[in-house]
Every structure is written in structure tokens, then in C-alpha cells.
């Protein structure tokens, strides 16, 4: 095994590409182009909400239903993030549940990520909160961005909302999930009011249980502090972005 091969085992980065002159060989050029094409194709796949709801139900976790954002199609979703931050309506989901935690699954920019990781991530969250904090029925949000959790969490009447969202696909990873925590969610929250754990995509990225432990620590910290965001730092693995 060459030195570069050994190093490739510890990073997905495109390191040690063989040089021709001062550039890379044609096979690297074509490999890159193929990855870019695949990522672009993946962005436009629609979210299969029915299958996701079944998977979440199989964990013994209730699902409240599917909420559409104000966006009408995927193309508009990419051009109009403002419309993706607001639910068209929340009348079909339960109000004032009094639960501690709300979970919103938003397709975001990678439906692949949500399909692959949302259900097992919810499983890990159920484990860390089990018996301690009550989780409201999960809401699936289509053509949705992170802030859609503010209105949904407010409607659910939860103390803290966790938005599981498909992160923008890269070349190496097109299925990365992020989880954004907002304490006392309500419309008008700012990005600095949130904390996040990103790059959840085992086996390459963060594992579900590790992510769930960090999120549990952040939830506990937010409940103690009465706020989330840049002021919340748990001193170990707190994440804000």
C-alpha cells in the first residue's frame, strides 16, 4: 500500500492525484465530472414521504403528517428559499401538544440524505430522550428549509424543535444530514438562535448515536439556559453553524 493509499483511508478528500505536468490525468477529470453530474441529478429527486413515514412509524414513533412549504415545485424551491421557510398550512398537524421535543424532517437540498438517514437518526434520538423528554409526533416537510421548523414547532407547542434537513450535496457526499436545534421555536427566529450538528452520514460521516448524544447535551443546555444559539456552548462538542 502506498503512502497516499494509506492516507486516503483517513479522508474522503481527493488527495495525491497523480500529476501530468502541473495538472491531473484525464481519468481524474472524468471521475470528477461524473460525480458532479450525479450530485446535480440527486438534488432534483422528489422526497418519498410515504416510505419515510412508514420507516418512522416502524420505530414506534408517531408521525403527524406531511406539510408542504409555500413552494410549488423543486425549481422554485431552489430560487425562492423564502417560500421554503414557511409552511403552506399547519392545520392538519396537532396543535399545542405540550411535548418537550418537536422533530421536523425537511427535505432541504438532498432528498437522498433524508431518505437514507432521517429514520435511523430519529431512532437514535428516541433512545437518548427515552423516559426523560416527550417527543411530539414527527412532521415531514416537503420542499422545506430549516426555518420551517419555527412555525411548525410553534404550532406543535414544543419547547425545543429539531429540524433534520438534507444538506447541500457535495461531490463525495450527497447524503449528508444536518440537525438544527431551536429553543422556543417561533416565526422570526434568527440563524444565531440555532445550534447544529452537521455531516451526519455514517459510515463516512458522523454516526447517529454520537450525533444524538451531542444533540441531547445541547437540548439540556438550552433548557437550562432558556435559549439556543451562539450563547449556548456545552464545552465539549457543542456545534453552532
Amino acid at each position, binding site marked *: 500500500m502506498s503512502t497516499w493509499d494509506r492516507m486516503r483511508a483517513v*479522508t474522503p478528500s481527493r488527495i495525491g*492525484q497523480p500529476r501530468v505536468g*502541473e495538472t491531473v490525468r484525464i481519468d481524474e477529470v472524468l471521475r470528477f465530472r461524473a460525480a458532479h453530474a450525479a450530485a446535480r441529478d440527486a438534488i432534483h429527486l422528489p422526497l418519498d414521504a410515504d416510505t419515510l413515514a412508514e420507516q418512522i412509524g416502524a420505530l414506534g414513533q408517531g408521525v403527524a403528517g406531511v406539510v408542504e412549504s409555500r413552494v410549488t415545485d423543486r425549481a422554485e424551491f*431552489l430560487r425562492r428559499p423564502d417560500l421554503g421557510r414557511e409552511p403552506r398550512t399547519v392545520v392538519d398537524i396537532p396543535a399545542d401538544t405540550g411535548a418537550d421535543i418537536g422533530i421536523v424532517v425537511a427535505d432541504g437540498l438532498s432528498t437522498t440524505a433524508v431518505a437514507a438517514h432521517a429514520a435511523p437518526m430519529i431512532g437514535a434520538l428516541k433512545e437518548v430522550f427515552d423516559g426523560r423528554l416527550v417527543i411530539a409526533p414527527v412532521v415531514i416537510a416537503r420542499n422545506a428549509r430549516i426555518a420551517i421548523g419555527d412555525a411548525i414547532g410553534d404550532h406543535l407547542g414544543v419547547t425545543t424543535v429539531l429540524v433534520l434537513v438534507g444538506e447541500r450535496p457535495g461531490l463525495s457526499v450527497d447524503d449528508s444530514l444536518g440537525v438544527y436545534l431551536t429553543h422556543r421555536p417561533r416565526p422570526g427566529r434568527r440563524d444565531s438562535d440555532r445550534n447544529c450538528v452537521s455531516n451526519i452520514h455514517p459510515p463516512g460521516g458522523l454516526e447517529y448515536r454520537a450525533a444524538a448524544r451531542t444533540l441531547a447535551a445541547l437540548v439540556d443546555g438550552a433548557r437550562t439556559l432558556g435559549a439556543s*444559539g451562539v450563547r449556548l*456552548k456545552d464545552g465539549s462538542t457543542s*456545534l453552532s453553524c
Partner: protein
Amino acid sequence: MSRYRQTLADHTYEFDGLAEVMAKATPLRSGDVLAGCAAHTDAERVAAQWILADIPLRTFLTEHLIDPEVDEVSRLILDAHDATAFAEISTLTVGGLRDWLLECVTRSDAAARLRTVGPGLSAEMVAAVSKLMRNQDLIAVARACEVTSRFRTTIGQPGRLATRLQPNHPTDDPRGVSAAILDGLLLGAGDAVIGINPASDSARATGDLLRLVDEIRTRYEIPTQSCVLSHVTTTIELCEAGAPVDLVFQSIAGSQAANEGFGVNLAVLQEGMEAGRSLGRGTIGDQVMYFETGQGSALSADAHRGIGGVPIDQQTLEVRAYAVARAFDPFLVNTVVGFIGPEYLYDGKQIMRAGLEDHFCAKLMGLPMGIDVCYTNHAEADQDDMDSLLTLLGVAGAAFVIAVPGADDVMLGYQSLSFHDVLYARRTLGLRPAPEFEQWLVRQGMSDADGRVQPLDIDRSALRGLGASA
């Protein structure tokens, strides 16, 4: 509020106030359409440009886009305005300034004249003139501006193109970060900074990464500086705890509300600069601040409105962020031009235009300006667009660009330049690394006397120890 009128081909266009003229005069981009302030037609855009060309520069000192009563960035812009530097151009219009700049670049003392006038140009004046300028104008004037900055290397000298080596890893694995640093160093990158975006913003994780890079830098005696791009408050905490902080990083924007969205204000930035300088780690300079900006950041935080709730165009807001940067004497500033997304810059053409605007405006304002030549997978752009923008910026005299292994940032999930792309630009355009770093490359046997990085077997490299832990 002034009302402006312009007739073109028998059609009269009307604009309510300076903010609307500025927005509608801006070359088309998706973010202004999203904000609802873009021109509705191409003809309306040109009508706004005619009006803008005739507006006296002095107007910008009395007619405000964002109320200084409620916005500290507006107050900063007014307070920092240098009337003496402004005197020479104080009678010009925006169009007159464009002509003055292009006449200036043909003179032998262009760099000195541009440097003298810079503090007299407010952010809004610079944004306004850029809206009238063609791409070649933006390139010609930016190239004539000379802005250098110093910490352990010298950035921004004519004929040099430095790089931020960005060795990001999805989980901040120190072996993975080290491997990417090794890859970059072997390809001659890292002279502006070895700068990591951490996956985690905790003080502990940030401190671990700082110590990792500092250990590599001191072990191989690399003349460069490191940075972990955590929130400025985290970095201040680390400075106080004695961590090896070289540069103090923060993302900034052009309105007080947008900066609040980032969790910062001018006082916190001042505190960050003082914390960084107090460590005294620079060897040839004490410029410690590193800022990132990008068109659309204020809009994305819904913090883009001016007096009367009127949306301010994203390019004007971007230049106001440079006014923030200018107040803290930074070592590095870069726009993340294609990173913010297609809702702000839709395709390769818009990204290219914005990259040239950002570079021109920042350099004219006296900033050591670099660019993250980049795009995301949901934008209509590809490697060909990046090749074009890199080449244009190399010609325009960009201080530095960002580079990652194989152009693929595996942590942030977007495409920047590759280390090889930088070698292309240096060879094709005759550019060299930062002088102190170039001498180190020569001493290591990694580069010839002209700064050309030689192909090197990793197992024979003096740096091979960096890969040993893998």
C-alpha cells in the same frame, strides 16, 4: 427622497430614491430578483445606469440607504469617511469616477493615487461605480491597486498569487486534516493561510485543530499562518486560554442586522482584533483579522432593508461589509462568491461578474482581497466557469484564492479550486507564491528558483512524516 427620471427610446422610467436607482442599475442577478429590487427589464436597468452615472459622489455623504440612527455599519461608513482623501474627486459624478479611475490606471503613479483616494471613497460610492463598469474596467482598475498585508508572509504584492490551503475534514479527524495539508504543501499551497472550517464550533475542537496546525507549522518551519474558522467569540475564548491563535476569523455582512444574524457586532470584532494582537505571534506584521463575505448573506438573514423598508441590492450590501473589514486592518479578506447559492447568483455568468465586482470594490477600498472561486451543485455552473473566473482574477491581481484537494471540499460540500488549478494560473499568468513561502519551497527542494513547484515523490519528501500517522 429624490425622485429620478430617465427617458430612453420614448419611454420614461422613474425611480424613487437612491436605493432604487442603485438596485435597478445592478447587472442582473437572482438575489436582487428574490429581494424584489431588480430592474424589471433590460431597458429599465440601463435607464437606471444613466441616472446613476450623473449622480454626484457627494450625494452619498448626505443621502443614506440604511439609516445611521439604527445601523452601526452606516455610522461607521460616515465616521470613517476621509474628507481630505475625498477632496480630489469630490466634484465628480459616479460616471465621472469611472472615467477618472480608467484614466488613472494609465499613469505611472496609479497605485499611489488609488491608495490616496481610497479612504475618501465610501462603500456606496464604490458599489455605485462598479455597477457602471464593464468586466474589463473592473479588472484594469483592480490590477492597478496595490494592497499588501503582513503576518508571517507578505500577501498582495504584484506578480504574486497566494493560496489559502483549506484542509477540511467531515469530522475534524486530525489525520485526515494532516493528509490534506501535506497534499497542499507538496503542490505549493498554503502561503496565505492554512485555514480550516471546523465541523464543530466548540472551543475544545477548535483548540485541538489550532494545536495540530501549529505543530505542523513549527516542525517544518513553514512561513505561514493558521486559522480555524470558528465564531469570533470562540476564538477570543481560545486566545485567553493561551491557544496558538494566529488569525482571528469572522464572517461579516453589510448591515447591523445581518451581523447580528452572525452573532457579532463592531465591538465584538474590536475585541477579537485586540485579543489576536495581544498574542504578538506575527513575525513581519500584526494584521490578525481574517474576514469572509459574500453577496446574498444579508438577504439570506432577512437583514437587507434600508430606510422605509426598501430592499438594498446585494452588491451594495456586500461592499458595505468591506467598510466593516476596513475598520479592522485585516490580513486577509475573501468573498465566498459562488458558495451562497443559486438564489443569489444563479449561474456561471452571475458568479463571474460578482467575483470581479467583489475583488475590484474591496481592493479599491484598500483590502487584501482574495476569492473563493467556487460553486455549489445546485447552481448552474461547472469547472469551466471556475477556470474562466480564476484566469480573470489572476489577471486582475487577486491577492489569494482558496484551494482544496481535487477542487472538492468534502466538509462543506461544494467545489472550490484545486491545488493544481493554482499551478495552472501561476504558470499561465506568470505569478508566484508569497515571497517568504516561496523561499521555503526552494529550501525544501520542492520548487525551482522561479517558484515552480516540482513533482516530488512523497516518500522522498521532507514532509513525509505528515503522512506517517495515517
